[in-house]
């Protein structure tokens, strides 16, 4: 049994083991010098055996043999308790130390730990029946064993609290890892679904054009497919760079022109893929935090991808509205029967919702509205 589990008592240091052995030596000294009219030979022998258990327990704890150490601790506690009255109380000291060590071991279940303490007290009393002592002496011996049990309990609880803290930290780390994993999945989806989906459209068109013998138009398609692939690669590189080393730039405000430019680029790409899109902007634009800009860009990208996939050729309306501190994006297209993006079970809308949910005042509504599929995403621009 090793002590690697959370909440396990640390192995004793050499110093604490040395102190324990010094204590045992002191007790042996008491046993030897204290022999006389007040002691019983059987009790002294029993106490000697208890000290032997104490010493062996220390060795086992040092070697990491927790179960053996626990067994020796219990044996020492019971033998010491029975010998207490017959050794003028020296046995009670041994019992107190061994009870403390046994009870502090988390391997011992709580009820069993209580039982060890109670049985030890009972054995002190039985020892006092066999070798009568004064009421005061007996009370002191019982109190000594009780104190051992009490300090063992407090050590046990401290260890349990430590174990709890370790488990909590592990849980937190797991949660963070999970969040990071989801963020990576979202970025992968956004970058790859957009550029690969576009590539498929372009290459299908090129294929059809080549079949029809229109090599010139096919070449145009292939050239724009190459551009799309190159921009997708660039985006993938940027995403990987950000994941590898998130920089302070993430917190720098982004100018509204940059966002406008990115949205215009996405609209242009949509048109290049044979789509129809109109872009409107209302209100007074202002700077925003970088995560808001990224979320907006991804939302436009995802909505356009969805429109191409589920309502090919349908005119898409993209509206960017600036209101005080809030920026609102609305993307809508006529509903194409029978499937709608919400029913496709893709990860795009999920990722979009997650991105906006992480922003101040961020929310996404997506669904059918007046016969159109509409995505409405908004977030506070933050202290741009």
């Amino acid at each position: 049994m090793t002590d690697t589990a959370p909440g396990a008592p640390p192995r004793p240091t050499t110093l604490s083991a040395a102190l324990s052995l010094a204590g045992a030596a002191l007790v042996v000294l008491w046993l030897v010098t204290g022999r006389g009219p007040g002691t019983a030979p059987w009790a002294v022998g029993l106490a000697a055996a208890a000290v032997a258990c104490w010493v062996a327990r220390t060795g086992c704890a040092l070697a990491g043999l927790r179960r053996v150490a626990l067994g020796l601790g219990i044996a020492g506690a019971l033998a010491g308790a029975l010998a207490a009255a017959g050794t003028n109380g020296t046995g009670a000291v041994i019992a107190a130390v061994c009870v403390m060590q046994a009870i502090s071991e988390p391997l011992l279940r709580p009820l069993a730990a209580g039982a060890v303490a109670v049985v030890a007290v009972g054995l002190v009393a039985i020892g006092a029946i066999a070798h009568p002592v004064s009421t005061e002496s007996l009370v002191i011996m019982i109190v000594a064993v009780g104190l051992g049990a009490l300090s063992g309990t407090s050590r046990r609880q401290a260890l349990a609290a430590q174990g709890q803290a370790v488990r909590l930290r592990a849980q937190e780390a797991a949660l963070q890892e999970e969040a990071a994993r989801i963020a990576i999945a979202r970025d992968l989806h956004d970058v790859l679904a957009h550029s690969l989906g576009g590539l498929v459209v372009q290459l299908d068109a090129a294929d059809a054009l080549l079949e029809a013998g229109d090599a010139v138009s096919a070449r145009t398609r292939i050239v724009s497919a190459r551009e799309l692939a190159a921009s997708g690669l660039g985006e993938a590189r940027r995403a990987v760079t950000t994941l590898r080393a998130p920089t302070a730039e993430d917190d720098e405000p982004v100018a509204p022109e940059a966002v406008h430019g990115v949205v215009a680029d996405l609209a242009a790409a949509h048109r290049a893929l044979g789509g129809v899109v109109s872009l409107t902007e209302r209100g007074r634009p202002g700077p925003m935090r970088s995560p808001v800009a990224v979320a907006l860009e991804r939302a436009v990208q995802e909505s356009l991808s969805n429109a191409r996939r589920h309502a090919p050729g349908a005119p898409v309306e993209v509206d960017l509205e600036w209101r005080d501190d809030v920026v609102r994006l609305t993307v809508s297209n006529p509903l194409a029967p029978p499937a709608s993006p919400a029913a496709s079970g893709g990860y795009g809308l999920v990722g979009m919702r997650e991105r906006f949910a992480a922003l101040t005042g961020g929310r996404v509504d997506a669904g059918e509205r007046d016969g159109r599929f509409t995505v409405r995403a908004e977030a506070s621009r933050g202290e741009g």
Partner: protein
Amino acid sequence: MNLSVVGNVVLIVLLIGWFGYRQTTWRPVATGRMWVTPLIMAVVGLGTGVQHGATLTGIDLAVLVVELVVSLGVGAWMGAIAHFRRISRDAAPSGRDAGAVYESRTGWWGLALWLVVIGLRVGIDVVGAQLGAHVATATGLILVLFAANRLARSAVLAVRLQRYEAAVPAAAGIPRP
């Protein structure tokens, strides 16, 4: 046969009858209230013990402690063998036991353990009296021993119920009417 022995016998017969009946029937477990009876018993027992007046010798104390430990042990044993089950909604208890979710029964083995406790009490009393323990054999103190027994039983039962609820949180979470 002196008064102390007669008193012991009467108390023992009464307690056996009462607890025998309770052991073998299903009783609601009111987790808050199950500590009250033993505590009252302990206080009454200690009070009558103090009234006894004689000084407590080392032997008296030793005999008492041994009896207490045995009572605690047997009580814990009873708690360990007690059966418990959820009270059905229709039979939800009212009055003092309102709010109890479980009921328990120790059964005939519990009764046998009671007889063991009493046998030990009588045996230890006889041995103790021979050794010179007089206070320990006082009638009232038997109540303290019964209290210890009940306390240990309640403690073990409480731990078992806690463990059970932790193992089946869904069952424990059913709201009660």
